[in-house]
């Protein structure tokens, strides 16, 4: 692997992490998923590509490459799902709170 490849890889990984932590946008999430889908389809239709890429970046076999990509995709999906859950929790809390305040009772 050349230095340029190394630097590009690091850049992509760092921007990915930064994106996850700070700049999330639903639109970009979908683009990322589409790209991953495109990768998936490519690997199925042209399986030899996986070995070629794997050799270039120094990963064992094409299968290993797919494995790593799968892990990264899963982590990404899990984080997006978790964020959605947290958001829903916030909404539920808001609703429950407004209802509680609206229907407050006094002892009788």
């Amino acid at each position, binding site marked *: 692997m050349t230095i340029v490849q190394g630097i590009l890889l690091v850049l992509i990984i760092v921007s990915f992490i930064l994106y996850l*932590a700070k700049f999330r946008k639903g639109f970009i999430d979908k683009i990322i998923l589409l790209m991953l889908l495109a990768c998936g389809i490519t690997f199925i239709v042209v399986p030899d590509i996986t070995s070629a890429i794997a050799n270039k970046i120094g990963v064992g076999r094409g299968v290993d490459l797919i494995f790593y990509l799968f892990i990264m995709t899963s982590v990404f999906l899990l*984080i997006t799902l*978790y*964020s959605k859950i*947290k958001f829903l*929790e*916030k909404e*539920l*809390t808001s609703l*429950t*709170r407004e*209802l*509680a*305040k609206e*229907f*407050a*009772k*006094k*002892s*009788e």
Partner: protein
Amino acid sequence: MKKSDVYIIIPSYNEGEELIKTIKGLSALGYNIVVVDDCSTFPAIDFINNSDIKCHCLRHLINLGQGAALQTGTEYALKNKAKYVVHFDADGQHPVEAIDQALSKFEVDENLDIVMGSRFLNAEHTSSVPKKRRFVLKVARLINYLFTGLLLTDAHNGFRVISAKAIPKLVLTQNRMSHATEVLNLVKKNKLNFIEIPIHVTYTDYSMEKGQSAFNSINILFELIIKKIIP
């Protein structure tokens, strides 16, 4: 300050007799009492209506957690023009005397934002805290310091009195038990003026059984770490 300026918020989950006892103990003070019923199986309002006590009662239709209940009660108090909001446990662990003690601190210092209770400012109070709890709290204190930069003597005390002007800067978003740490975070972030006062917490068999286990601190730690990564 007038009696009607003070609102005592009591989050309650499945507390019946104890809640009534606690409210009766507080009623002599003459302040407003707000019970926030966090979706108890048997609604708190039924216990309240069957007893001879006066208070407000709000009910969460789903169970959100103690932090959320406190925030709901606090917002309700503010809606009713409260000047001081007290956070007080339903199970009889908190001392009634501490409320006036805390309120007097506000009379002395008008820039004070929040008074927090501590079990460890005084040897006698400290010794009444069960050993295992003491150890967990000492560790919690250090972890709180790591996360918030504030080293208080008591990391996890639910007793606090907040002045109305500070409340917009103390919005609780952590619904469950990590509100204590969230309060510290907000105090630090918004540079609020705070002091700790010594309070004596009464541990009874009932409250110990119902209270948090040491393991819950792991839950809280987990929540804190996750919140740092995924705000």
